[in-house]
Every structure is written in structure tokens, then in C-alpha cells.
């Protein structure tokens, strides 16, 4: 089959690889009809995530038709149309039973390695390094889905791929980021980053009833898309983030802050960003934490910081004094996709939201490698790329 494979920094290739096979009775093989490039795939592209190996198949946003099932798979049958969550979940362990699906205790098959790095491992993820299980990703023609009875979202045939594809990651990620804020009707919710996850954070915060939603970025077309969804845009190249937020909140700061940027924040004119760039280049720091620092600074005392943005390891100069003295709550984590997916399928089916608004580029899988460059450099108005195998 054909797939997109990682071969090092900035190096993704469209290659011929062996077809996946059933390895466990609980597996299923999916014939991928649509997949997408996620913002967090760029962290792999830039080689900021450790434990990638040359030839690894990337991609964790995908959907398709069940082609083959293992002997122990009961809830799926050949021909079913499913979206696959990026977090692999057994559905039986203590964490899964609590709804903490992204912390599944069984699905990371490299648990020993992850335990050493994180203290305790999280769930296995598709196409996202060997630290998260080393599973082949979904930017491919076919994918093996472990624990298939639990690791799938069945979707109605009445909805198109474009409407449901993002149920596997970015829509529930934006939703969980907003839910973690415990939004009240009087709240101002500020979202750093108007990328695909940021766009879903905006829509989720609006649907959950925030009085005011603000989005911070410097890409005009992304800001205009966020504004269309109900956000007040702040272009950090053109105005002071702090000054504008003070004005919008009558000097009190926002109650809820969401980091939809993660480890590669870049604000060229900010001294701390330059500092982070230098340290990251010298392998003295993993992540660039400008957004975290700014969130902690601007948030209203007693407020909530929600962090769906991906971080990989060590960060530097985090103002713990501000965080502690302002009694801020921090909520983060990979998304517990299955916890929200049924509710979100219903909301799409009811017409409350159509997630396809975010798609700006739809190309063949073969064009995927070049789209990594286009997406990374935010060229050609690119916000979200869908690939068709």
C-alpha cells in the first residue's frame, strides 16, 4: 500500500510499504477514505518528538471502512464506516472506565519506555512516535486499529467524510479544551492560536455560552475564520495582547485561557521567544513556552488555564510565582476522544455545527509531503489539509 512515512527532520515521503495485517484478535483493518494533517504532525515533521524511527508511518486523523476484523471483535463488522480516535483505548482498564481514555493503561505497547520518560505512560497513539506505542499512522491506504471494539466512532451514512473526519481529534480536542474551562455565561475565554484546534475551541466556547471569546494569532485569514465563528481577533503583530485584553475585560483579565499552540510558539519580536529558539536549537530545552508564560500573566486570579496544545518535555522560565499567587487552575492532557464523540456526532447530525468549515485544502495522499511544507509555512491560506488515499 501507499503511505506517508517519516524519515527525519522536514522529511516526509510518499512510499510503498507492506499492507497491515491482523496481529491480535481484537484488531480491525480500516480502508482509509480520508485523513488529515494535524498541527501536532508538524512537531514530528520538525523532529521535536523523541523516539521516531526512519520509515514510521505518520498521521492520526483518519476514517474509513472496516475491511477486516479479528476473531474477538464484536461491535464492528466488515463494511462499517468509522472514524478512528487518535487515542487507542481498551475500554476496560481503570482509566478507561473513568472516562480518561487518553490515559488508557493497556494500549501503549511501549509502556516500559513511556513509564521511564513520563513516570507513568499514557495511551497508545496512532503514528506518533514509539514513546506512544509505535503504531503505524493513518496517512495511508490501510491502517491496523488495535482494540477496535473501543477504538472507533460509528458515524451515520448521511454525513460526509468532511463533516465527521475531525471527530477523531481536533473537534473533540477543541471541545475538551473548552469543557475544561467550565465556561459560565459571564466568562471571557481567550484562545491562543487560530489554527484548526483553535478554531474548534472558538466554536466550542461559543456553543457552551461564553459571553466573550477572543482569539490571538498573526495569520490574517485564520483570524478572519475565527471571527466568523464568533471570536474577537487580536493580531499580535499589530497590537498589544496585554493592552487589548485589559480593555476587553475592564482591566480584570480573562477568566479562562486556552493554549491551542503548544511547543512551537513563535512571536518573533518577543525576547523570551528568541531565548527559547536559541535554547531549543542547542538541545537545552524541548519546548518554546511563550504562550504558557503569557497565559499565566494575563489570566484573572482564580482563573483556569486549559492546555490542549502539545508539549513534549522540558520547558524553561515558567513563572510559578504568578501561577501560585494567582491561584490558577491548570487543566491539560491528550483528548479523551471517546468521552465526547457520541455527543458531538449528535450535534453534527442535528446541524448545530458543520466541522467542514475548517478545510481549506483537499488533495491526494501523494501530494501529502508537499502539503506538510505548505501547512507549516501557512502558505496559500492553508488552515486544514485533508488527504485522499
Amino acid at each position: 500500500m501507499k503511505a506517508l512515512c517519516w524519515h527525519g527532520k522536514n522529511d516526509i515521503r510518499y512510499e510503498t510499504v507492506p499492507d497491515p495485517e491482523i496481529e491480535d484478535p481484537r484488531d480491525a483493518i480500516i480502508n482509509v477514505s480520508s485523513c488529515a494533517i494535524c498541527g501536532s504532525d508538524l512537531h514530528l515533521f520538525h523532529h521535536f518528538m523523541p523516539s521516531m524511527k526512519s520509515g514510521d508511518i505518520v498521521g492520526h486523523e483518519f476514517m474509513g471502512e472496516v475491511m477486516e476484523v479479528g476473531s474477538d471483535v464484536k461491535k464492528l463488522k466488515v463494511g462499517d464506516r468509522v472514524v478512528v480516535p487518535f487515542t487507542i483505548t481498551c475500554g476496560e482498564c481503570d482509566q478507561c472506565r473513568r472516562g480518561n481514555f487518553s490515559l488508557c493503561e493497556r494500549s501503549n505497547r511501549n509502556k516500559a519506555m513511556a513509564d521511564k520518560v513520563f513516570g507513568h505512560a499514557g495511551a497508545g497513539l496512532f503514528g506518533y512516535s514509539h514513546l506512544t506505542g509505535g503504531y503505524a499512522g493513518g496517512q495511508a491506504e490501510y491502517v491496523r486499529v488495535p482494540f477496535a471494539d473501543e477504538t472507533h466512532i460509528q458515524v451515520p451514512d448521511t454525513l460526509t467524510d468532511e463533516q465527521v473526519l475531525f471527530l477523531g481529534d481536533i473537534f473533540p480536542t477543541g471541545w475538551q479544551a473548552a469543557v475544561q474551562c467550565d465556561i459560565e455565561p459571564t466568562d471571557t475565554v481567550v484562545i491562543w492560536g487560530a489554527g484548526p484546534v483553535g478554531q474548534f475551541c472558538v466554536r466550542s466556547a461559543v456553543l457552551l455560552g461564553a459571553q466573550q471569546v477572543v482569539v490571538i494569532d498573526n495569520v490574517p485569514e485564520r483570524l478572519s475564520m475565527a471571527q466568523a465563528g464568533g471570536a474577537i481577533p487580536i493580531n499580535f503583530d499589530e497590537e498589544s495582547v496585554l493592552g487589548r485584553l485589559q480593555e476587553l475585560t475592564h482591566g480584570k483579565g480573562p477568566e479562562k485561557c486556552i493554549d491551542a499552540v503548544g511547543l512551537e510558539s513563535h512571536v518573533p519580536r518577543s525576547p523570551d521567544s528568541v531565548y527559547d529558539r536559541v535554547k531549543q536549537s542547542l538541545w537545552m530545552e524541548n519546548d518554546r513556552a511563550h504562550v504558557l508564560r503569557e497565559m499565566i500573566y494575563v489570566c484573572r486570579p482564580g482563573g483556569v488555564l486549559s492546555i490542549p496544545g502539545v508539549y513534549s518535555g522540558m520547558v524553561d522560565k515558567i513563572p510559578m510565582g504568578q501561577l501560585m499567587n494567582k491561584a490558577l487552575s491548570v487543566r491539560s492532557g491528550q483528548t479523551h476522544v471517546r468521552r465526547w464523540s457520541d455527543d458531538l456526532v449528535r450535534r453534527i447530525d442535528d446541524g448545530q455545527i458543520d466541522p467542514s468549515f475548517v478545510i481549506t485544502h483537499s488533495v491526494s495522499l501523494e501530494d501529502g509531503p508537499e502539503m506538510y511544507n505548505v501547512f507549516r509555512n501557512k502558505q496559500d491560506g492553508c488552515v486544514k489539509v485533508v488527504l485522499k488515499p
Partner: protein
Amino acid sequence: MNRSHSYMSHSLHGSDRLARGLGWFSLGLGLCQVLAPRKLTKPLGMEGFEPMVMACGAREIACGIGALSTNPTLAIWSRVGGDALDLAALAAALRDKHNPKKENVGVAMAALGAVTALDLYCATKLQKRYAYQAGPTPDYSDRSGFPHPVDSMRGAASDFETPKDMRAALPSPAKSPGPRVTPTTRSPIE
């Protein structure tokens, strides 16, 4: 993980590969300049200029690290600037009447000229390839994702109840009218 057999298209272009080559070259040359400057000054008849060569080495190392980063454009342009400075220094050495190694300086200038041309070619290609936000700025102001105007969608998911484990640790600071907590006046010890 599956392993590859052959590939048809890839994200790494010729200019990226050239930038990597120049990056490793920069690192190697920079280390030589920093660790053994006399190995360069002596054949060029430039004894006494070791501190300057070492400074150039530090610059080369910085450029090398930049050229191997996710966006090598700035580092390669820095190399072009560095090449110009190096050419100027060599030109001064060539004009020095007392320099007994002028032939070597000439050869070095020719080699550096070729490298400069390569750097310039690479930087120009990368400039276009890595141009941030290049291309037209589309208008996405009609992409709300909602079936109705935003104001009528605000709170449309009010049937959703925040799970217990995701509720805010403290009452919302702006909640109004909302409940207010009366501070206790009694000592908790009594």
C-alpha cells in the same frame, strides 16, 4: 512499524539538502577555525590573526546550527554575509605587500567565491520556499461552521453539563450575581 521499500514524492527538496550540506560544512569549518586557527592563518600568511579566525569559527558554528534547524533560510543568508566578510579579509591579505603566501590566498578566494555562489543560490531558493504566509490571503469570513448567525448559536450547547472532574477549582471570578462566600469570623480551632 512498517518499513519502506521505495518512494515517489517527498517533502525535502534539493535546496533543503543543499542547506543541510552547507550546515555540516559550516560546523566542520567552524570547529577547525576555533580549535586550530593557526592551521589556517599560516598557509595564508596571516599569522597574528588567530583571534579573528576564531571569531569567524564561532560565527560558522552558529550558522551551521541554524542551517540544520527546521527553517535554514536565515542561517544560509547569514552565511552569505559571512562569506562577504571573509572575502574582504582575504582581499586585504592579498594586498599585503609583505604576505609571502599570496598564491594560497588567491586559491582560497577562488574557493570561497564558489562557496559564496552556492550559498547565494541556496538562500534565494529557500527564501521563496520557506516564505511565511506566502500567496494570496483568502477571505474566510463566511466560514462560521454554524447554521445560524453566531449570536443565535451562543449557548446552543447549554444542555451540556460539565463533568464533575472538569469543573473549575474555584468559583468563576466574574460570576454575577452568583453566590458569595461569607468569610468565617470564628477561629477554626474553637
